[in-house]
């Protein structure tokens, strides 16, 4: 099997090693694995929502979420019980990603949006449970608040950079997916079906960001793009060649199967999360997590 070592290529991402995937710093600190998954999922959503409110391109939001997810992996990764918890690192990931980009943002913009998101009753948002007219006084930051939070943001940024060894490269599968669809002759002319497949594939690629199996940390962009196309074409009802066309894009059958299952099962997992947390907020800071862990232990004793 030919292996091509590439650095900061548009085609390849650094992947988590098996050791990094086997244990995390948070688990070593005693955070249960399922709670850890819920918290990281909530932190990823904070980035997505903040990105939408700040009108950032999805490309930047995606990079920020991938960097955020990498931070928590492995024994040498960050712990949710550190001073800088999921919320700080989430804001720092977004700040750091925008900084070098063509749409830089001030710490004030990011911190204000995060303050607003903290006022929401739950992060399992639907258009129905979003407050229609938010009250600015609930999330306004005074100069003093801003000063303190800015220092915390910079400190979290520094922690993030050090933990990732200053490697921030993220290769995205979206453009690849379009190229693949073109080479499969699905995206020709103005075929509405082709457009529907592309849209659906992009939705799967974006959902993968929040997948508890950390797909962007374990699979290369070519595999993600291929699996998203496979699934999208099935769903829309567009026929693809019956031969092993995925091999053209350097994806093995097993890889494809694993990814498709992971993508299909994601919806059920999120619904389970929504049910589990209901109206409660997922804990995002060290203090909140400690309370939640205490609550669970209490629950175990009662039961």
């Amino acid at each position, binding site marked *: 099997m030919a292996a091509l070592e590439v650095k*900061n290529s548009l085609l390849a991402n650094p992947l988590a090693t098996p050791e990094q995937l086997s244990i995390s710093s948070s688990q070593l600190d005693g955070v249960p694995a399922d709670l850890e998954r819920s918290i990281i999922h909530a932190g990823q959503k904070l980035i997505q929502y903040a990105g939408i409110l700040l009108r950032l391109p999805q490309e930047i939001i995606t990079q920020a979420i991938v960097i955020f997810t990498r931070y928590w992996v492995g024994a040498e990764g960050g712990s949710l019980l550190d001073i800088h918890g999921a919320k700080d690192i989430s804001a720092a990931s977004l700040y750091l990603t925008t900084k070098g980009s063509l749409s*830089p943002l001030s710490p004030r913009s990011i911190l204000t949006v995060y303050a607003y998101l903290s006022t929401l009753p739950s992060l399992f948002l639907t258009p129905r449970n979003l407050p229609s007219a938010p009250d600015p006084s609930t999330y306004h930051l005074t100069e003093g608040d801003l000063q303190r939070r800015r220092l915390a943001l910079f400190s979290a940024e520094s922690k993030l*950079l050090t933990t990732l060894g200053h490697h921030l490269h993220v290769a995205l599968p979206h453009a690849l997916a379009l190229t693949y669809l073109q080479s499969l*002759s699905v995206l020709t002319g103005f075929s509405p079906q082709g457009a529907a497949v592309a849209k659906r594939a992009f939705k799967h690629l974006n959902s993968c960001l929040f997948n508890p199996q950390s797909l962007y940390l374990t699979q290369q962009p070519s595999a993600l793009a291929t699996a998203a196309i496979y699934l999208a074409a099935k769903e829309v009802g567009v026929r693809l*060649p019956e*031969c092993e*066309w995925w*091999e053209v894009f350097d994806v093995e059958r097993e890889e494809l199967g694993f990814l498709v299952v992971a993508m299909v099962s994601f919806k059920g997992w999120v619904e389970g999360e929504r049910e589990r947390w209901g109206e409660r907020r997922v804990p995002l800071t060290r203090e909140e997590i400690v309370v939640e862990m205490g609550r669970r232990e209490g629950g175990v004793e009662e039961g």
Partner: protein
Amino acid sequence: MASNSRWADTEEDTAAEIHRKREKEERKRAKQLKAQQEQEAREAREAQAKATSSVSTDIDDRPAKRRRLSGESESNEVHDEQPRPLLRFTAPGWGPSRRIENFETLNHIEEGSYGWVSRAREMATGEIVALKKLKMGNPTEGFPVVALREIQILNQCRHKHIVALREVVVGSKPSDVYMVMEFLEHDLKSLMEDMREPFSPSETKSLLLQLSSAVSYLHSHWILHRDLKTSNILMNNLGQIRLADFGMARHTSNPPPKNLTQLVVTLWYRSPELLLGTTTYGTAVDIWSIGCVFAELLTRSPLLQGRNEADQLAKIFATLGIPTAANWPGFRRLPHAKSLALPSNPPPPPPLRSSFSLLTGAGAQLLERMLALNPDDRPEAEEVLQHRYFQEDPKPKSEKMFPTFPSKAGQERRRRVASPKAPRGREADAGAVGHVDFGGIFSASQDSEAGSGFNLKFR
């Protein structure tokens, strides 16, 4: 490629199209396969070479290469086709930054625009490296964006003539961040200060070729360096140069992004469009700087040593002529051009080649093109590499034949050089050109054209 009749039957009217599609697919795969086989063959050769040198290391690569598709696809396909090798991309993973304590500082080298550089030894391996401690400037910014860009861009670049960033290490304070780079003995600026003679024509050619190939690599990867100058060009004792200091570099696009800062490039190497305040510019700003470096390699002293922005423009116009609507259409629309008072009927400046008596016609033509006032008239870096100046005799000197020099960076504290610094962020004086009268810039130019005497030179 088993039967596909079921597929064709269902969509009779589109069968032709599908057939075409399939053929395309097959061609594509064939091509891919061929490339992979070649890759495979290369791999195999490498593995064999490795095996001869060290037998133990290659055992673990072997099974991976033989891996096949499992399940039904194997049983169906194996009869008529070879197992198909798939291309695997691997990228280095991530882990926490190492600590500065792994390195031992040997001596200070210099203070660059965005950090302090010193020579150090990695304790575990004994290797000599250059350590650049980043300056954490702005307290309202956090980690400096210029450092972020420099690290990302250097991580992206892999080129023989671009300095290699090995890793980023940290100290005990969050503000202690160091870039670990390969160490090179010289930079061209201090090297030339100590040379009794300028580089020979063949050495100059080799250096210019190396520099242009690095810049061509950057430009083809959509990167502008924006601070090319002799002190940012490092050289080792093998005659190889490496481009360094990417603190001003950034990505660009086609068409170029709007609202770029014009406060880039050290004054003496700054192009006229930047001095005239353009906010949309491209690769031509780097080519101008290469032109300035070229001239400096020939004479050992910078060609255009302005005292400030206005004086720099005056020196440019005195040496290369006045911009006109004919040689630079549209220059009048640049922000600072409105306040220029240019002589209406200037005498043409002495030809550039008269200052470079040793330069051949082809060399002078290349220099003049790189120093064209109009950025659109400057060649691309790729064109520079193809220029006939490099084909004619004397040929570029092989890197191996370069003389060696005593290294200042390696042995002693470097003398402070009186070269202006690269502009720094917002503190610099934007649009300082102001109202300037260039009426008299040619008054003194007559002396400079003194005839060049006889000059014996080794090639």
